[in-house]
Protein backbone atom coordinates (compact mmCIF):
# COMPACT_ATOMS: atom_id res chain seq x y z
CA UNK A 1 0.00 0.00 0.00
CA UNK A 2 2.80 2.40 0.90
CA UNK A 3 4.64 1.61 -2.33
CA UNK A 4 1.49 2.26 -4.31
CA UNK A 5 1.03 5.60 -2.61
CA UNK A 6 4.65 6.54 -3.25
CA UNK A 7 4.33 5.62 -6.92
CA UNK A 8 1.18 7.63 -7.32
CA UNK A 9 2.77 10.62 -5.63
CA UNK A 10 5.76 10.30 -7.92
CA UNK A 11 3.50 10.08 -10.95
CA UNK A 12 1.65 13.11 -9.75
CA UNK A 13 4.76 15.17 -9.12
CA UNK A 14 6.54 14.24 -12.33
CA UNK A 15 3.47 15.06 -14.32
CA UNK A 16 2.89 18.41 -12.74
CA UNK A 17 5.54 19.63 -15.11
CA UNK A 18 3.89 20.52 -18.37
CA UNK A 19 3.22 17.67 -20.73
CA UNK A 20 0.89 16.98 -23.62
CA UNK A 21 -0.69 13.87 -22.15
CA UNK A 22 -0.96 14.80 -18.51
CA UNK A 23 -2.92 17.67 -17.24
CA UNK A 24 -2.30 17.59 -13.52
CA UNK A 25 -2.50 21.36 -13.51
CA UNK A 26 -6.25 21.00 -12.90
CA UNK A 27 -5.49 19.93 -9.35
CA UNK A 28 -2.16 21.68 -8.86
CA UNK A 29 -2.45 23.30 -5.41
CA UNK A 30 0.22 25.85 -6.27
CA UNK A 31 -2.00 27.51 -8.85
CA UNK A 32 -5.08 29.45 -7.91
CA UNK A 33 -7.36 27.51 -10.20
CA UNK A 34 -5.94 24.13 -9.16
CA UNK A 35 -6.41 24.99 -5.48
CA UNK A 36 -10.02 26.03 -6.09
CA UNK A 37 -10.64 22.72 -7.86
CA UNK A 38 -9.10 20.71 -5.02
CA UNK A 39 -11.23 22.53 -2.46
CA UNK A 40 -14.31 21.89 -4.58
CA UNK A 41 -13.53 18.17 -4.77
CA UNK A 42 -12.67 17.71 -1.09
CA UNK A 43 -15.76 19.63 0.01
CA UNK A 44 -17.79 16.60 -1.12
CA UNK A 45 -16.18 14.63 1.72
CA UNK A 46 -18.57 16.06 4.31
CA UNK A 47 -21.64 14.75 2.52
CA UNK A 48 -20.06 11.37 1.79
CA UNK A 49 -19.21 10.91 5.46
CA UNK A 50 -22.52 12.29 6.72
CA UNK A 51 -24.69 10.18 4.43
CA UNK A 52 -22.63 7.08 5.30
CA UNK A 53 -22.81 7.67 9.04
CA UNK A 54 -26.56 8.29 9.09
CA UNK A 55 -27.21 5.31 6.80
CA UNK A 56 -24.99 3.11 9.00
CA UNK A 57 -26.91 4.25 12.09
CA UNK A 58 -30.25 3.29 10.56
CA UNK A 59 -28.82 0.06 9.21
CA UNK A 60 -27.52 -0.96 12.65
CA UNK A 61 -30.94 -0.41 14.23
CA UNK A 62 -32.89 -1.93 11.34
CA UNK A 63 -30.51 -4.89 11.12
CA UNK A 64 -31.15 -5.84 14.75
CA UNK A 65 -34.89 -5.58 14.19
CA UNK A 66 -34.61 -7.87 11.17
CA UNK A 67 -32.27 -10.31 12.91
CA UNK A 68 -34.40 -10.99 16.00
CA UNK A 69 -37.16 -12.95 14.22
CA UNK A 70 -34.44 -15.20 12.75
CA UNK A 71 -33.64 -16.35 16.28
CA UNK A 72 -37.21 -17.26 17.14
CA UNK A 73 -38.33 -20.86 17.46
CA UNK A 74 -41.48 -19.87 15.56
CA UNK A 75 -41.13 -20.89 11.94
CA UNK A 76 -43.18 -18.08 10.41
CA UNK A 77 -41.02 -15.46 12.10
CA UNK A 78 -37.88 -17.07 10.71
CA UNK A 79 -39.50 -17.14 7.27
CA UNK A 80 -40.23 -13.41 7.44
CA UNK A 81 -36.56 -12.79 8.19
CA UNK A 82 -35.44 -15.03 5.32
CA UNK A 83 -37.72 -13.29 2.83
CA UNK A 84 -36.49 -9.86 3.88
CA UNK A 85 -32.82 -10.78 3.78
CA UNK A 86 -32.95 -12.65 0.46
CA UNK A 87 -35.13 -10.01 -1.18
CA UNK A 88 -33.17 -6.96 -0.09
CA UNK A 89 -29.81 -8.62 -0.65
CA UNK A 90 -30.67 -9.46 -4.24
CA UNK A 91 -31.57 -5.92 -5.32
CA UNK A 92 -28.63 -4.04 -6.89
CA UNK A 93 -28.06 -0.72 -5.22
CA UNK A 94 -28.62 1.50 -8.26
CA UNK A 95 -32.11 0.22 -9.15
CA UNK A 96 -33.04 0.42 -5.47
CA UNK A 97 -31.83 4.01 -5.39
CA UNK A 98 -33.97 4.88 -8.43
CA UNK A 99 -36.96 3.15 -6.89
CA UNK A 100 -36.58 5.00 -3.60
CA UNK A 101 -35.82 8.38 -5.13
CA UNK A 102 -38.31 8.40 -8.00
CA UNK A 103 -40.84 5.76 -6.93
CA UNK A 104 -41.28 6.12 -3.19
CA UNK A 105 -42.65 9.73 -3.34
CA UNK A 106 -45.40 8.45 -5.65
CA UNK A 107 -46.36 5.79 -3.11
CA UNK A 108 -46.38 8.45 -0.40
CA UNK A 109 -48.56 10.65 -2.56
CA UNK A 110 -51.03 7.84 -3.23
CA UNK A 111 -51.37 7.47 0.53
CA UNK A 112 -52.13 11.16 0.75
CA UNK A 113 -48.76 11.97 2.33
CA UNK A 114 -46.64 14.80 1.05
CA UNK A 115 -43.15 13.62 1.86
CA UNK A 116 -40.58 14.85 -0.62
CA UNK A 117 -37.40 12.80 -0.84
CA UNK A 118 -34.31 14.86 -1.57
CA UNK A 119 -31.12 13.25 -2.91
CA UNK A 120 -29.56 13.15 0.55
CA UNK A 121 -32.40 11.25 2.23
CA UNK A 122 -32.94 9.14 -0.87
CA UNK A 123 -29.33 7.99 -0.52
CA UNK A 124 -29.65 7.47 3.25
CA UNK A 125 -32.81 5.33 2.88
CA UNK A 126 -31.36 3.24 0.06
CA UNK A 127 -28.01 2.63 1.71
CA UNK A 128 -29.61 1.80 5.06
CA UNK A 129 -32.11 -0.62 3.47
CA UNK A 130 -29.53 -2.33 1.32
CA UNK A 131 -27.04 -2.64 4.15
CA UNK A 132 -29.60 -3.81 6.72
CA UNK A 133 -29.82 -7.25 5.09
CA UNK A 134 -26.10 -7.68 5.71
CA UNK A 135 -26.07 -6.26 9.23
CA UNK A 136 -29.01 -8.54 10.06
CA UNK A 137 -26.92 -11.54 9.06
CA UNK A 138 -24.01 -10.25 11.14
CA UNK A 139 -26.27 -9.89 14.20
CA UNK A 140 -27.80 -13.30 13.63
CA UNK A 141 -24.49 -15.13 13.45
CA UNK A 142 -23.10 -13.13 16.36
CA UNK A 143 -26.06 -13.89 18.59
CA UNK A 144 -26.21 -17.53 17.53
CA UNK A 145 -22.54 -17.92 18.40
CA UNK A 146 -23.46 -17.33 22.06
CA UNK A 147 -24.15 -20.76 23.51
CA UNK A 148 -27.75 -21.76 24.12
CA UNK A 149 -26.94 -22.43 27.74
CA UNK A 150 -26.60 -18.69 28.32
CA UNK A 151 -30.21 -18.09 27.33
CA UNK A 152 -31.40 -21.03 29.41
CA UNK A 153 -29.47 -19.87 32.46
CA UNK A 154 -30.88 -16.36 32.07
CA UNK A 155 -34.44 -17.63 31.75
CA UNK A 156 -34.09 -19.91 34.80
CA UNK A 157 -33.12 -16.94 36.98
CA UNK A 158 -36.34 -15.27 35.92
CA UNK A 159 -35.17 -12.84 33.23
CA UNK A 160 -37.63 -12.04 30.45
CA UNK A 161 -36.73 -12.40 26.77
CA UNK A 162 -35.90 -8.70 26.48
CA UNK A 163 -33.82 -8.74 29.69
CA UNK A 164 -32.00 -11.86 28.53
CA UNK A 165 -31.08 -10.13 25.28
CA UNK A 166 -30.08 -6.89 26.91
CA UNK A 167 -28.07 -8.10 29.90
CA UNK A 168 -26.79 -11.49 28.81
CA UNK A 169 -26.74 -12.13 25.07
CA UNK A 170 -26.06 -8.79 23.38
CA UNK A 171 -23.18 -7.74 25.67
CA UNK A 172 -21.43 -10.98 24.73
CA UNK A 173 -22.44 -10.95 21.07
CA UNK A 174 -21.36 -7.34 20.57
CA UNK A 175 -17.67 -8.33 20.75
CA UNK A 176 -18.21 -10.61 17.78
CA UNK A 177 -20.61 -8.26 16.00
CA UNK A 178 -18.78 -4.94 16.19
CA UNK A 179 -15.74 -5.68 14.02
CA UNK A 180 -17.72 -7.05 11.03
CA UNK A 181 -20.26 -4.27 11.53
CA UNK A 182 -17.51 -1.64 11.31
CA UNK A 183 -16.21 -3.42 8.25
CA UNK A 184 -19.65 -3.09 6.72
CA UNK A 185 -19.29 0.67 7.13
CA UNK A 186 -16.61 0.60 4.42
CA UNK A 187 -19.20 -0.93 2.09
CA UNK A 188 -21.60 1.93 2.80
CA UNK A 189 -18.93 4.57 2.20
CA UNK A 190 -18.06 3.10 -1.17
CA UNK A 191 -21.67 2.55 -2.22
CA UNK A 192 -22.51 6.14 -1.34
CA UNK A 193 -20.82 7.05 -4.65
CA UNK A 194 -24.03 5.93 -6.36
CA UNK A 195 -25.82 8.87 -4.78
CA UNK A 196 -24.01 11.04 -7.35
CA UNK A 197 -26.46 9.71 -9.94
CA UNK A 198 -29.44 11.33 -8.23
CA UNK A 199 -27.49 14.53 -7.80
CA UNK A 200 -26.21 14.44 -4.28
CA UNK A 201 -23.17 16.67 -3.85
CA UNK A 202 -20.71 14.07 -2.57
CA UNK A 203 -17.21 13.12 -3.70
CA UNK A 204 -18.10 11.37 -6.95
CA UNK A 205 -20.68 13.93 -8.00
CA UNK A 206 -18.17 16.72 -7.58
CA UNK A 207 -15.50 14.91 -9.59
CA UNK A 208 -18.06 14.29 -12.34
CA UNK A 209 -19.06 17.94 -12.46
CA UNK A 210 -15.46 19.04 -12.70
CA UNK A 211 -14.71 16.52 -15.43
CA UNK A 212 -17.48 18.07 -17.52
CA UNK A 213 -16.05 21.58 -17.27
CA UNK A 214 -12.31 20.79 -17.18
CA UNK A 215 -12.30 17.74 -19.43
CA UNK A 216 -9.52 16.04 -17.48
CA UNK A 217 -11.08 12.65 -16.52
CA UNK A 218 -7.81 10.79 -15.82
CA UNK A 219 -6.46 13.31 -13.34
CA UNK A 220 -9.76 14.07 -11.63
CA UNK A 221 -10.86 10.45 -11.25
CA UNK A 222 -7.40 9.53 -9.98
CA UNK A 223 -7.81 12.20 -7.35
CA UNK A 224 -11.30 10.89 -6.58
CA UNK A 225 -10.00 7.35 -6.09
CA UNK A 226 -7.30 8.64 -3.77
CA UNK A 227 -9.94 10.44 -1.73
CA UNK A 228 -11.85 7.17 -1.20
CA UNK A 229 -8.59 5.37 -0.52
CA UNK A 230 -7.65 7.76 2.27
CA UNK A 231 -11.16 7.62 3.73
CA UNK A 232 -11.33 3.82 3.71
CA UNK A 233 -7.78 3.45 5.07
CA UNK A 234 -8.72 5.62 8.03
CA UNK A 235 -11.84 3.51 8.69
CA UNK A 236 -9.83 0.28 8.32
CA UNK A 237 -7.34 1.51 10.89
CA UNK A 238 -10.31 2.21 13.18
CA UNK A 239 -11.70 -1.28 12.62
CA UNK A 240 -8.34 -2.88 13.41
CA UNK A 241 -8.06 -0.84 16.58
CA UNK A 242 -11.57 -1.98 17.54
CA UNK A 243 -10.73 -5.62 16.83
CA UNK A 244 -7.62 -5.42 18.97
CA UNK A 245 -9.56 -3.87 21.82
CA UNK A 246 -12.37 -6.42 21.58
CA UNK A 247 -9.85 -9.25 21.38
CA UNK A 248 -8.04 -7.97 24.43
CA UNK A 249 -11.35 -7.81 26.26
CA UNK A 250 -12.23 -11.36 25.29
CA UNK A 251 -9.08 -12.75 26.86
CA UNK A 252 -9.97 -11.37 30.27
Amino acid at each position, binding site marked *: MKILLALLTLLFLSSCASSDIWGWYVIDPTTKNGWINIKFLINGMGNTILVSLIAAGFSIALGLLVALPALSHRRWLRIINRIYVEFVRSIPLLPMLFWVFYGLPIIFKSMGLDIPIDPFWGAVITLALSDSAFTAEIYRSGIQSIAR*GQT*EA*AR*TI*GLSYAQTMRYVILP*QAIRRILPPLANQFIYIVKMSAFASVIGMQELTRRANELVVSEYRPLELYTFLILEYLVLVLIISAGVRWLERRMGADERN
Partner: protein
Amino acid sequence: MTDKKIEMIDVNKWFDDFHVLKNINLTVKAGERVVICGPSGSGKSTVVRCINRLEEHQSGVIRVDGVELTNDKAAIATIRSEVGMVFQQFNLFPHLSVLDNLILGPMKARGLSRADATDRAMHYLERVRIPEQAGKRPAQLSGGQQQRVAIARSLTMEPKVMLFDEPTSALDPEMISEVLDVMVSLARDGMTMIVVTHEMGFARKVADQMIFMDGGEIVESGPPEPFFTAAKSARCQKFLSQILQH
Protein backbone atom coordinates in the same frame (compact mmCIF):
# COMPACT_ATOMS: atom_id res chain seq x y z
CA MET B 1 -50.11 -24.15 49.05
CA THR B 2 -49.76 -27.85 48.69
CA ASP B 3 -47.59 -30.58 50.04
CA LYS B 4 -46.80 -31.78 46.53
CA LYS B 5 -44.12 -29.49 45.09
CA ILE B 6 -43.88 -31.25 41.76
CA GLU B 7 -46.38 -33.50 40.08
CA MET B 8 -45.90 -35.14 36.69
CA ILE B 9 -48.85 -37.17 35.43
CA ASP B 10 -48.54 -39.33 32.30
CA VAL B 11 -46.10 -36.91 30.69
CA ASN B 12 -45.06 -37.66 27.13
CA LYS B 13 -42.60 -35.82 24.96
CA TRP B 14 -41.32 -36.28 21.46
CA PHE B 15 -38.37 -34.71 19.64
CA ASP B 16 -39.87 -34.94 16.15
CA ASP B 17 -40.36 -38.71 15.79
CA PHE B 18 -38.26 -39.65 18.78
CA HIS B 19 -40.32 -40.52 21.83
CA VAL B 20 -38.05 -39.16 24.61
CA LEU B 21 -40.42 -39.35 27.56
CA LYS B 22 -42.95 -42.16 27.90
CA ASN B 23 -45.74 -41.81 30.48
CA ILE B 24 -43.64 -40.23 33.18
CA ASN B 25 -45.32 -40.16 36.59
CA LEU B 26 -43.47 -38.48 39.40
CA THR B 27 -44.44 -36.77 42.62
CA VAL B 28 -42.03 -34.79 44.75
CA LYS B 29 -43.16 -33.60 48.16
CA ALA B 30 -41.86 -30.54 49.95
CA GLY B 31 -38.41 -31.20 51.38
CA GLU B 32 -38.00 -34.43 49.44
CA ARG B 33 -34.77 -35.25 47.59
CA VAL B 34 -35.08 -37.25 44.40
CA VAL B 35 -32.08 -38.62 42.53
CA ILE B 36 -32.51 -39.68 38.91
CA CYS B 37 -29.96 -41.92 37.25
CA GLY B 38 -29.79 -43.87 34.04
CA PRO B 39 -27.73 -44.33 30.90
CA SER B 40 -27.16 -41.35 28.60
CA GLY B 41 -30.08 -40.69 26.27
CA SER B 42 -32.52 -42.20 28.76
CA GLY B 43 -34.44 -38.92 29.07
CA LYS B 44 -33.38 -38.02 32.62
CA SER B 45 -32.18 -34.53 31.71
CA THR B 46 -35.33 -33.96 29.67
CA VAL B 47 -37.51 -34.72 32.71
CA VAL B 48 -35.72 -32.03 34.68
CA ARG B 49 -35.79 -29.56 31.79
CA CYS B 50 -39.55 -30.04 31.36
CA ILE B 51 -40.15 -29.01 34.95
CA ASN B 52 -39.08 -25.43 34.31
CA ARG B 53 -40.22 -25.41 30.71
CA LEU B 54 -36.83 -25.35 29.01
CA GLU B 55 -38.52 -28.14 27.06
CA GLU B 56 -42.21 -28.43 26.24
CA HIS B 57 -44.07 -31.65 26.89
CA GLN B 58 -46.72 -32.77 24.40
CA SER B 59 -49.15 -34.63 26.63
CA GLY B 60 -49.81 -35.15 30.30
CA VAL B 61 -49.80 -32.70 33.18
CA ILE B 62 -46.92 -31.05 35.01
CA ARG B 63 -47.70 -29.04 38.13
CA VAL B 64 -45.18 -27.10 40.15
CA ASP B 65 -46.40 -25.98 43.56
CA GLY B 66 -49.95 -26.44 42.29
CA VAL B 67 -49.49 -24.33 39.16
CA GLU B 68 -49.91 -26.20 35.89
CA LEU B 69 -47.36 -25.69 33.11
CA THR B 70 -49.10 -24.59 29.94
CA ASN B 71 -48.28 -22.06 27.26
CA ASP B 72 -49.41 -19.38 29.69
CA LYS B 73 -46.39 -17.12 29.94
CA ALA B 74 -47.36 -15.81 33.37
CA ALA B 75 -47.54 -19.35 34.74
CA ILE B 76 -44.14 -20.16 33.25
CA ALA B 77 -42.66 -17.03 34.82
CA THR B 78 -44.18 -17.90 38.21
CA ILE B 79 -42.81 -21.42 38.05
CA ARG B 80 -39.37 -20.36 36.89
CA SER B 81 -39.12 -17.92 39.75
CA GLU B 82 -39.74 -20.79 42.19
CA VAL B 83 -37.50 -23.36 40.54
CA GLY B 84 -33.72 -23.00 40.51
CA MET B 85 -31.62 -24.86 37.99
CA VAL B 86 -27.97 -25.90 37.95
CA PHE B 87 -26.50 -27.03 34.64
CA GLN B 88 -23.73 -29.45 33.77
CA GLN B 89 -21.84 -26.68 31.96
CA PHE B 90 -22.39 -24.09 34.77
CA ASN B 91 -23.62 -21.51 32.24
CA LEU B 92 -22.27 -18.57 34.18
CA PHE B 93 -22.32 -15.26 32.33
CA PRO B 94 -18.67 -14.83 31.27
CA HIS B 95 -18.86 -11.07 30.69
CA LEU B 96 -19.96 -10.38 34.26
CA SER B 97 -18.10 -10.68 37.55
CA VAL B 98 -19.17 -13.38 40.00
CA LEU B 99 -21.08 -10.82 42.04
CA ASP B 100 -22.81 -9.38 38.96
CA ASN B 101 -23.80 -12.92 37.94
CA LEU B 102 -25.53 -13.24 41.29
CA ILE B 103 -27.28 -9.88 41.51
CA LEU B 104 -28.65 -9.83 37.95
CA GLY B 105 -31.68 -12.02 38.68
CA PRO B 106 -32.63 -10.44 42.02
CA MET B 107 -32.32 -6.92 40.57
CA LYS B 108 -33.96 -7.40 37.17
CA ALA B 109 -36.49 -10.14 37.85
CA ARG B 110 -37.25 -9.41 41.53
CA GLY B 111 -36.72 -5.65 41.51
CA LEU B 112 -34.32 -5.56 44.45
CA SER B 113 -32.04 -2.56 44.90
CA ARG B 114 -28.36 -3.07 44.13
CA ALA B 115 -27.49 -2.89 47.84
CA ASP B 116 -30.10 -5.49 48.84
CA ALA B 117 -29.17 -7.75 45.94
CA THR B 118 -25.50 -7.48 46.88
CA ASP B 119 -26.24 -8.38 50.52
CA ARG B 120 -28.20 -11.38 49.38
CA ALA B 121 -25.53 -12.40 46.87
CA MET B 122 -22.76 -12.22 49.48
CA HIS B 123 -24.88 -14.29 51.86
CA TYR B 124 -25.15 -17.09 49.32
CA LEU B 125 -21.51 -16.80 48.23
CA GLU B 126 -20.61 -17.42 51.87
CA ARG B 127 -23.01 -20.31 51.88
CA VAL B 128 -21.06 -21.95 49.03
CA ARG B 129 -17.83 -20.81 50.75
CA ILE B 130 -16.30 -18.54 48.11
CA PRO B 131 -17.16 -14.95 49.13
CA GLU B 132 -13.55 -13.93 48.39
CA GLN B 133 -14.08 -14.61 44.65
CA ALA B 134 -16.91 -12.07 44.26
CA GLY B 135 -14.91 -9.64 42.15
CA LYS B 136 -13.47 -12.18 39.72
CA ARG B 137 -14.66 -13.22 36.29
CA PRO B 138 -16.00 -16.80 36.00
CA ALA B 139 -13.11 -17.78 33.69
CA GLN B 140 -10.65 -17.03 36.50
CA LEU B 141 -12.21 -19.71 38.74
CA SER B 142 -11.77 -23.47 38.79
CA GLY B 143 -14.60 -25.67 37.53
CA GLY B 144 -15.66 -26.57 41.06
CA GLN B 145 -15.74 -22.92 42.09
CA GLN B 146 -17.73 -22.01 38.98
CA GLN B 147 -20.33 -24.65 39.74
CA ARG B 148 -20.61 -23.40 43.33
CA VAL B 149 -21.14 -19.88 41.98
CA ALA B 150 -23.86 -21.29 39.69
CA ILE B 151 -25.55 -22.90 42.70
CA ALA B 152 -25.32 -19.62 44.61
CA ARG B 153 -26.76 -17.77 41.60
CA SER B 154 -29.82 -20.03 41.67
CA LEU B 155 -30.17 -19.65 45.43
CA THR B 156 -30.24 -15.84 45.22
CA MET B 157 -33.66 -16.23 43.60
CA GLU B 158 -34.69 -18.10 46.79
CA PRO B 159 -36.33 -20.98 44.93
CA LYS B 160 -38.59 -23.53 46.55
CA VAL B 161 -37.23 -26.34 44.41
CA MET B 162 -33.74 -26.89 43.01
CA LEU B 163 -33.05 -28.90 39.88
CA PHE B 164 -29.56 -30.23 39.21
CA ASP B 165 -28.75 -31.56 35.74
CA GLU B 166 -25.55 -33.61 36.08
CA PRO B 167 -23.88 -30.88 38.17
CA THR B 168 -20.57 -32.71 38.56
CA SER B 169 -20.22 -34.43 35.18
CA ALA B 170 -18.08 -31.66 33.66
CA LEU B 171 -15.77 -31.42 36.65
CA ASP B 172 -12.31 -32.82 37.26
CA PRO B 173 -12.49 -35.58 39.90
CA GLU B 174 -10.79 -33.58 42.64
CA MET B 175 -13.44 -30.86 42.39
CA ILE B 176 -16.49 -33.07 42.59
CA SER B 177 -16.60 -33.31 46.37
CA GLU B 178 -16.59 -29.53 46.98
CA VAL B 179 -19.75 -29.26 44.85
CA LEU B 180 -21.39 -32.32 46.40
CA ASP B 181 -20.65 -30.97 49.89
CA VAL B 182 -22.60 -27.82 49.07
CA MET B 183 -25.48 -29.92 47.74
CA VAL B 184 -25.51 -32.12 50.83
CA SER B 185 -25.71 -29.07 53.07
CA LEU B 186 -28.58 -27.74 50.97
CA ALA B 187 -30.36 -31.07 51.41
CA ARG B 188 -29.77 -30.96 55.18
CA ASP B 189 -31.45 -27.54 55.26
CA GLY B 190 -34.58 -29.08 53.81
CA MET B 191 -34.42 -27.89 50.19
CA THR B 192 -36.63 -29.80 47.78
CA MET B 193 -34.27 -31.19 45.17
CA ILE B 194 -34.28 -33.22 42.00
CA VAL B 195 -30.77 -34.29 41.06
CA VAL B 196 -29.71 -36.04 37.88
CA THR B 197 -26.39 -37.62 38.76
CA HIS B 198 -24.26 -40.74 38.71
CA GLU B 199 -22.70 -39.92 42.06
CA MET B 200 -24.16 -42.85 43.96
CA GLY B 201 -22.33 -42.03 47.18
CA PHE B 202 -24.16 -38.70 47.20
CA ALA B 203 -27.42 -40.45 46.34
CA ARG B 204 -27.11 -42.86 49.27
CA LYS B 205 -26.42 -39.96 51.60
CA VAL B 206 -29.30 -37.65 50.69
CA ALA B 207 -31.90 -39.35 48.46
CA ASP B 208 -35.41 -40.03 49.76
CA GLN B 209 -36.38 -41.45 46.40
CA MET B 210 -34.26 -43.06 43.69
CA ILE B 211 -35.38 -43.18 40.09
CA PHE B 212 -33.81 -45.25 37.34
CA MET B 213 -34.68 -44.26 33.77
CA ASP B 214 -33.98 -46.08 30.53
CA GLY B 215 -35.34 -45.52 27.03
CA GLY B 216 -37.54 -42.62 28.13
CA GLU B 217 -39.31 -44.59 30.87
CA ILE B 218 -39.09 -44.70 34.62
CA VAL B 219 -38.04 -48.32 34.98
CA GLU B 220 -37.63 -48.42 38.72
CA SER B 221 -38.19 -46.10 41.63
CA GLY B 222 -38.24 -46.25 45.38
CA PRO B 223 -36.31 -45.45 48.53
CA PRO B 224 -32.52 -45.97 48.28
CA GLU B 225 -32.30 -49.01 50.48
CA PRO B 226 -34.13 -51.60 48.44
CA PHE B 227 -33.09 -49.69 45.30
CA PHE B 228 -29.35 -50.16 45.75
CA THR B 229 -29.40 -53.58 47.34
CA ALA B 230 -32.35 -55.27 45.70
CA ALA B 231 -33.24 -53.64 42.38
CA LYS B 232 -36.07 -55.55 40.75
CA SER B 233 -35.45 -55.00 37.03
CA ALA B 234 -32.51 -56.54 35.20
CA ARG B 235 -31.76 -53.27 33.39
CA CYS B 236 -31.43 -51.38 36.66
CA GLN B 237 -29.30 -54.10 38.25
CA LYS B 238 -26.96 -54.06 35.26
CA PHE B 239 -26.69 -50.27 35.26
CA LEU B 240 -26.00 -50.12 38.99
CA SER B 241 -23.37 -52.84 38.81
CA GLN B 242 -21.64 -50.92 36.02
CA ILE B 243 -21.47 -47.60 37.80
CA LEU B 244 -20.88 -48.98 41.29
CA GLN B 245 -17.80 -50.87 40.16
CA HIS B 246 -15.88 -47.62 40.10
